[in-house]
Structures are given as C-alpha cells and as structure tokens.
C-alpha cells in the first residue's frame, strides 16, 4: 500500500431513521485509482458527498493528506486539493466553457480580490495565466475550439469532458469521479477510460471512482470497495471482488434473498 491520501474511518451517516452509510471505511493511496461500487441505494452517492464535504458525517473521521478534514466545508476541501465531478453533470450553465474552468482556478489565485476589482496588473496577469492554462487543458481534452462557447451549447459527452477539465484546472491531488461514464456511448466510454488513466499517469493524481459500468472499474481500478445497504461488504483487487459471492449476491440476489427470509 502506498502512502494514503484519503482515509475515511468508520463513517456513519443517518437520515432520520435510515442509516445511509454505516461505519464504512476506505483508503485511497497516492497515485491510486480506487473504485467504489455497489448496487443502487447502497450509499455510494452519500459516501461521495461525505468525502467532498457536501454533507457531514454523524460519526467517523476523514483524513486528507494526514489532516483531519471532517469538519471542513466543501470549498475548503477543494482548496486542500480535492476536486469532484457530479453524477448528474453540473456546470455553470450561463458561462462559457473557458469561464467554467477559470472559476475552478480562482482559489489558487494569489492576487487579492481588490486587485481584481481595481483591474491591477497582478490580477490581470494571473487571469491571463489561468485562461492560458484553461485552453491548454481544453486542448488536452480535444475541446479547444469550444473555449468561448456557452457550456450549454455542447453535447452531453463534451460537457462531461469539460467537467473533468474543470476538476483538473483546480490542480487536485485527489479527484472524486461520480459515475463519469453515465450516459456515455460505448466508444466514448473507451475514450473516458484512456483519459482517466492518463490523468493519473501524467498528472499524478489519485482518483476515487464511483461507477456502475463494470468495464470502467475493471480496466482502471487498483483497488475496489463494495458498499451494500451502507456497509462495506468487500474490498480488494477488482477481478477478485467481482467474483466474490457476497458481492454477486448483493448485486443480483439481495431482493430475492430478503424476500425468501421474510
């Protein structure tokens, strides 16, 4: 195991009487791609929102690069180097593709807000640098010609790429991807797999990947954690995990088994 970048320790989250996540732990090592899988309603999305700080857990602790971030709101976690994408694609819909990227770089800017309001040289240079970097990233995703277009003018597949580019714009050390393959056509899934691998290899980032598409998980992940009904039921290498009878049952057998028992 490499040096851990993210450690979730015995995380529990309840909504009223329902326990969505129950004492679940996971670790993402530096440079690793860790998959988080589980059937619908298993608590994956809740776990992602807990990791990124959109929700706070009732119990448990999050360590990011060894620091306790459990009480930090999402924007602080982003500043510490955590980026995310959303299951239902989220972009700033009234802004251009480039502006969407530049916004993700705001938190890295050194010049003061006052300097930006007064249009001082320092702020202007930083803004220009951010735009240059945004265009480079867009070129990396083969989207350079769309830079000044409104994001809503792009196809869903392209918008997904913009979301990834936006995440990279914030120079994260951990990128949390929430079902990036959802709604993509098979050729686009292949491309996505390549891109995610290159993101890790070329930029050295660690990735927590929530995914339904098993092909993506098998091709990419070094390690897989399986949630069911909010509890971790298995973890390990992808090939081993998908053959684990407990996992198979969680995916295809839960309903049948419960009905048989009840």
């Amino acid at each position: 195991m490499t040096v851990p970048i993210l450690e979730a320790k015995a995380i529990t989250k309840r909504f009223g009487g329902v326990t969505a996540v129950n004492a679940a732990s996971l670790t993402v090592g530096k440079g690793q791609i860790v998959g988080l899988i589980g059937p619908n309603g298993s608590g994956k999305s809740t776990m992602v929102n807990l990791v990124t700080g959109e929700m706070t857990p009732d119990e448990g602790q999050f360590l990011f690069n060894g620091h306790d971030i459990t009480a930090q709101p999402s924007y602080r976690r982003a500043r510490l180097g955590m980026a995310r994408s959303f299951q239902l694609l989220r972009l700033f819909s009234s802004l251009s593709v480039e502006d969407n990227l530049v916004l993700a770089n705001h938190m890295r800017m050194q010049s003061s807000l006052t300097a930006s309001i007064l249009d001082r040289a320092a702020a202007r240079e930083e803004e220009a640098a951010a735009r240059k970097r945004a265009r480079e990233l867009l070129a990396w995703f083969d989207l350079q010609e769309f830079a000044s277009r409104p994001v809503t003018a792009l196809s869903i597949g392209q918008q997904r790429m913009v979301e990834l580019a936006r995440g990279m714009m914030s120079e994260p050390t951990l990128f949390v991807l929430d079902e990036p393959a959802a709604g993509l056509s098979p050729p686009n899934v292949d491309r996505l797999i390549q891109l995610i691998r290159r993101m890790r290899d070329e930029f050295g980032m660690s990735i927590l990947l929530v995914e339904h598409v098993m092909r993506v998980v098998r091709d990419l992940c070094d390690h897989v954690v399986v949630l069911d009904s909010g509890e971790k039921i298995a973890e390990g290498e992808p090939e081993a995990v998908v053959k684990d009878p407990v996992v198979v049952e969680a995916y295809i057998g839960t309903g049948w088994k419960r009905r048989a028992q009840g």
Partner: protein
Amino acid sequence: MKTLLAAIAAVALLAVAPFGLGGYETNVLMMVLFFVILAVGLDLVSGYCGQFSFATGAFYGVGAYTAAIMSRDLGTSIWLHLPAGAVVAGLFGLLLGIPALRLKGHFLAIVTIAFQTIVYLVISQWTSFTGGQVGLTMPNAGPVRIFGVTLFEFGSLRSYYWLTLAMTVICLIVAWRLIHSRLGREWVAIRDDETLAGAVGLDTTRGKLTAFVAYAALAGVAGVLTAHSLRGVTPDDFTIWISATVVAMMVVGGRGTFVGPIIGAAFLATLPEFLGKFAEYKMLIYGVLLVLAITLVPEGVVGRWRARTSR
C-alpha cells in the same frame, strides 16, 4: 471600445442636458439617476448573484436617514454623508445577507420583505430619532471646501444635478468593475449552482455577503443623494413600493445584464411624465407591466435582444 465611446457620449449628453431643460425636467432627470443607481445595485445581488431582494427601499431609506440625522446632529456636509450612507447601508446589507446564507427562493424573498417592513416601521415610529411620520428636513448640500477655499456651491439645482450625475457615473463604474472582476464571476457561479460553486473551492458565504453589501451600499448612496435633493426625508419615500418599483425596473430591463436595469430605470422613471393626465395610473401601469414582463419577457428587453443577436 464601442461601448466606452457610447458611454462617454451618453454621459456628455446628460451633462449638457440641463442647459436645454427647465427646472422640472432637470429634477425628473435627477430622479432617473437615483433609480439607475438603485436598479443597478439590485441587479448585483439579484441579477448576478441570484439572491432575490424586496428590501431596496430599506437601504435607500437607511442612506437617506443617515444623511438627515448626521446633518441634524453633527452639522456635516454631503461629502461626509456619501461615504457614511454607503457604509451604514452596507452594514445593514451585511445584516440582511446573513439570513441569505441559509435561505433561498421564496423564503429569502419573505425575509427581505419582513426586513423592509421592519426598517419602515422603525423609521416611521421612532419619532425622537427619525422624526416619525413627519420626517426630517435638512439644509441643502452646502459648499464644497478644500482647505477653507470654496470650490463649488451646491445651492443651485444645476450644480446638484451635476454632482448626482458624477456620483451615478462613479457608482456605475464601481458596479461595472465588480461584475467584471473575479468576484462578479463568482456571483454568477453562485447564482447558477451554489453547490457546485462550493465544490470548485469558491467561498459562497463571502460571495453572497459581498453582493448584499455592494447592493445596499449603492442604495445608501442613492439615499444620501435623494435626501439632499429633497432637502429632507419622510418614511413614505422608502416603502416597499420603492422596492417593487426597482424590481420592476430590473426585470423589465433584464436581470443579470449591465445596461438592462439602466434602461428599465430610465423607462419606468420617466413613464409617468409621458402619461400626461394619465399619470395617476402610474402605479397601475407599473403593476401590469411587471406581470406582463415576467410572464412574456422574463429575461427582460436587453436579455431578449441579446438572445436574438447572438443567434
């Protein structure tokens, strides 16, 4: 560049306008400028940052009463009142911004209405401090002195109009810079998707509070200018109707555009003058216009025009 030239031409035209106009028309023009400041200010918080407010009249009133009370108790001049009005109104803006951190949509709208009503009730009932229903009178803006040398005398309508025009231009430049800075882009991000704004590392608390403060401070400046122009204040100048009128100006012109609220303010503030003997129907027409605008042209005339031309 073209925009800059057009803006300079418009300001130059407004600057020479009093030479061709009578006192009444100059006063109307001045009132238009007050509303331009108010509508552009509201657009910062509502149009750009997406936080709805029906409390413009309250901040406008706070600015005006700051000037009136300072001039009564301290004998100060407009040069002190302008920054003081902006700061005091801005602090009230901060106060209203706090509930906006937690509330959205109609909940926020109702809080702003409650806030507007509380401010109105306080200024109309706290007679010993605010003069109650009768309000306060104040002397004119007074001479402008630097090191004891009188530079301008703002006794005349024309000179006061120029001061108002100059302050309006300054307010518009401030608003323009805010919108086109990093902060303005963060406001739009908060309006579009607050969760996402947090996820990409933007401090949404700071974003919302700054928008409320900027909005309130601009309304405060408009209040100071109005108080000196009317030589006094009464609570009925700062009711929820002012708030509604300013919302109408912003909506008709186009939310989230820079020129929209300016055009909306110019149109709705001068409309009663063109209605002639129908001027008593002014508020009725505002009401109907507001319903029609939000139903048929929710993006405002400037928004609609932009959508047309970009196609």
